[in-house]
């Protein structure tokens, strides 16, 4: 029986957003008997609704409400109104995600210690260690059914992977495989095995890829403790004179403003919307926005150092067939400053269809240089670069008071400029990616610039000291006890790994904490 809670029920935990963080947290709390109202700005789409068509799917799932951009990043020039490629739907970006599920490395939790002072970077050690998170990584890997963990085999490699693997081996790379993926190689946990359809970014129509939309959300609802309200967009978080949060105001599916009372509020709207909500909740008591005594809300926005390398060959590859992200090279993920930068990066295969290739291969380019590349589409292989970027206070999400969304609220402006370390790392990765493909006979390679951000991190970062960040090691805000941040915006630093497994692990851990604090009446 799906629960239904009263707007005046002030005993519920309100979770804002139902993606990797919020979706998992909602279910984990519901499993423990905690009453949860999850408010999700987007609608609900399930495998039967997903479409095998890049732009049509984008129109169905992506967050296209207005946002603005500034800074030197090329995304601001090429996609000025689309800083991020993320989702507005139940399940959040776990509908779009590719499924790569990696643990952050031990040293990456302590970058200030290991990397030392990097000029212009606001590096900080996480207030937790790998050891703290390991038990939760174990749980998260079981939940997601991650390949190469818990006895689950690896996925078979597709054509794109085979080219990548052959090149990697010729180059002497050792750590190359089809990786750790939240995609079923065999039926697991009531989800089918992967059919290699190749539309992982468009929502998996077989349910082979883990997504909160069809796992954690319905399972939480089945407990009778979770009510998910879709098409419910939170405008602001309310508080009382004691500085405790008391509820949230949201626009319901008909555009009517509603107020849901709450005992605890957990914000999980992704790293762009979460700080925006906190800033839009400014009041006489908190003039700079909620949880912002440090001034850190919205700062230290990270998006991973990214880029892609595509390559054309004299024979067909057909990279679009099979899993979108089919394999990984991890040899460069180590911290080795002799390469000319701190931190490391992963190389992961990526295949795009013709529509997205045209939009992303070299945005803005035209003429024969571009079209002859497109003419080689069938003979192309591709990889994505994902590495640790440097946190910088000046890279930040702020409110743009000049531009309002459909509810009349100031939108998020996303300001980003690469740190020199990011640029050095990207150039290294371009060289290595190119070398991988040239080793197996590429006739031409394409160092492709970053896409709109899919990994959005750090804008409400975790810190040991109040002045360094927004939340403590539990994701609880330093300023307000019953206000938590439950998404990727908690990340102190970005690490080289795709973030979702860590977001999920933090959510499972936070659910334990909230449930125990509630039972001890500390919340």
């Amino acid at each position, binding site marked *: 029986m799906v629960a239904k809670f009263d707007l005046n029920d002030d005993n519920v935990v309100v979770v804002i957003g139902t993606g990797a963080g919020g979706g998992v947290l909602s279910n984990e709390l519901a499993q423990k008997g905690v009453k949860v109202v999850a408010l999700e700005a987007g609608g609900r789409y399930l495998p039967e609704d997903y*479409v*095998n*068509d890049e*732009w049509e799917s984008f129109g169905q799932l992506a967050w296209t409400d207005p946002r603005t951009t500034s800074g030197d990043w090329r995304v601001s020039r090429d996609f000025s109104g689309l800083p991020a490629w993320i989702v507005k739907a139940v399940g959040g970006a776990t509908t779009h995600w590719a499924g790569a599920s990696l643990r952050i490395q031990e040293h990456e939790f302590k970058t200030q210690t290991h990397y030392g002072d990097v000029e212009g970077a606001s590096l900080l050690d996480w207030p937790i260690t790998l050891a703290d998170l390991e038990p939760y990584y174990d749980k998260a890997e079981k939940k997601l059914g991650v390949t190469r963990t818990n006895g689950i085999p690896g996925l*078979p*490699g*597709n*054509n794109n992977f*085979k*080219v990548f693997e*052959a090149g990697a081996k010729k180059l002497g790379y050792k750590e190359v495989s089809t990786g750790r993926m939240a995609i079923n190689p065999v039926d697991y946990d009531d989800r089918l095995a*992967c*059919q*290699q*359809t*190749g*539309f992982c970014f468009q929502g998996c*129509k*077989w349910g082979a890829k883990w997504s909160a939309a069809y796992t954690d959300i319905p399972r939480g609802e089945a407990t009778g403790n979770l009510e998910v309200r879709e098409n419910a967009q939170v405008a602001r978080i309310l508080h009382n004179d004691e500085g405790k949060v008391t509820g949230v105001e949201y626009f319901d599916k008909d555009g009517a403003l509603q107020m849901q009372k709450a005992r605890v509020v957990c914000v999980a709207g992704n790293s762009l919307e979460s700080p925006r909500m906190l800033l839009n909740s400014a009041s006489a008591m908190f003039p700079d926005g909620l949880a912002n005594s440090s001034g850190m809300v919205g700062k230290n926005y990270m998006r991973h150092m990214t880029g892609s390398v595509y390559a054309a060959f004299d*024979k*067909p*590859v*057909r990279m*679009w*067939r*099979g899993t979108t992200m089919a394999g990984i090279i991890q040899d460069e993920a180590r911290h080795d400053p002799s390469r000319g930068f701190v931190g490391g990066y992963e190389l992961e295969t990526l295949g795009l*269809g*013709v*529509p997205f*290739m*045209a*939009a992303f291969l070299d945005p*803005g380019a*035209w*003429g*024969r240089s*571009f*079209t002859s590349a*497109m*003419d080689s*589409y*069938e003979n192309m292989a591709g990889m994505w670069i994902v590495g640790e970027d440097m946190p910088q206070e000046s890279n930040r999400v702020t409110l743009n008071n000049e531009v309002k969304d459909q509810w009349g609220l100031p939108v998020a402006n996303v300001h980003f400029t690469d740190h020199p370390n990011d640029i050095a790392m990207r150039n290294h990765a371009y060289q290595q990616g190119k070398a991988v493909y040239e080793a*197996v006979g590429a006739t031409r390679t394409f160092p492709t610039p970053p896409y709109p951000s899919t990994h959005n991190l750090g804008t409400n970062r975790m810190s040991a000291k109040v002045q360094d960040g927004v939340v403590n090691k539990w994701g609880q805000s330093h300023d307000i006890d019953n206000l938590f941040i439950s998404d990727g915006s908690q990340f102190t630093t970005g690490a080289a790994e795709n973030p979702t497994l860590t977001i999920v692990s933090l959510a499972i851990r936070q659910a334990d904490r909230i449930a125990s604090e509630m039972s001890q009446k500390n919340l």
Partner: protein
Amino acid sequence: MTKETKPTNLTRRALLGRAAAAGSLAVIGGGFIAAPNASWALTVNVISSHQMATIFQMARDIYPHDQIGDEYYVIAVKGYDSDGTKDMIAEGVAALDASAKAAGFADYLSVGWESDRVKLLTAMEDTGFFQTIRGGLVTGLYNQKAVWPIFGYEGESFSKGGYVDRGFNDINWL
């Protein structure tokens, strides 16, 4: 508002005979333009056939794919025959023709070599007109399902059961 169109005598031979000397298409007048081989034809209502012919040629020059037929480029630009865009098109085409004249040609359409047309386009690359036409083509051309097979792309695969039994790992030249 809407121009009267009189597509008279549109046999293949007649069309060929009336084809403009330069460019790959026949500007027939009366709001009607067609391919020299009559593989497609288009009636314009709001903008002139010269303007439509010019933006069509621009589309071919911006994203030239010799193996993609004119009809797909026509589909990508025909939406500009509308009230909302007619002023932008009129100004943009006039500017393009003016720069062609300055370079010694009668107008854009009479520039024979693509490389010479590309020079004219490069000079106006930062204008809103050029960027609108270019940006629109990214989806207008490449998101046409009918062009995907020309690139070898197979599109939707769910209804066929994915590629698990249809060659996801069939590469044989490594």
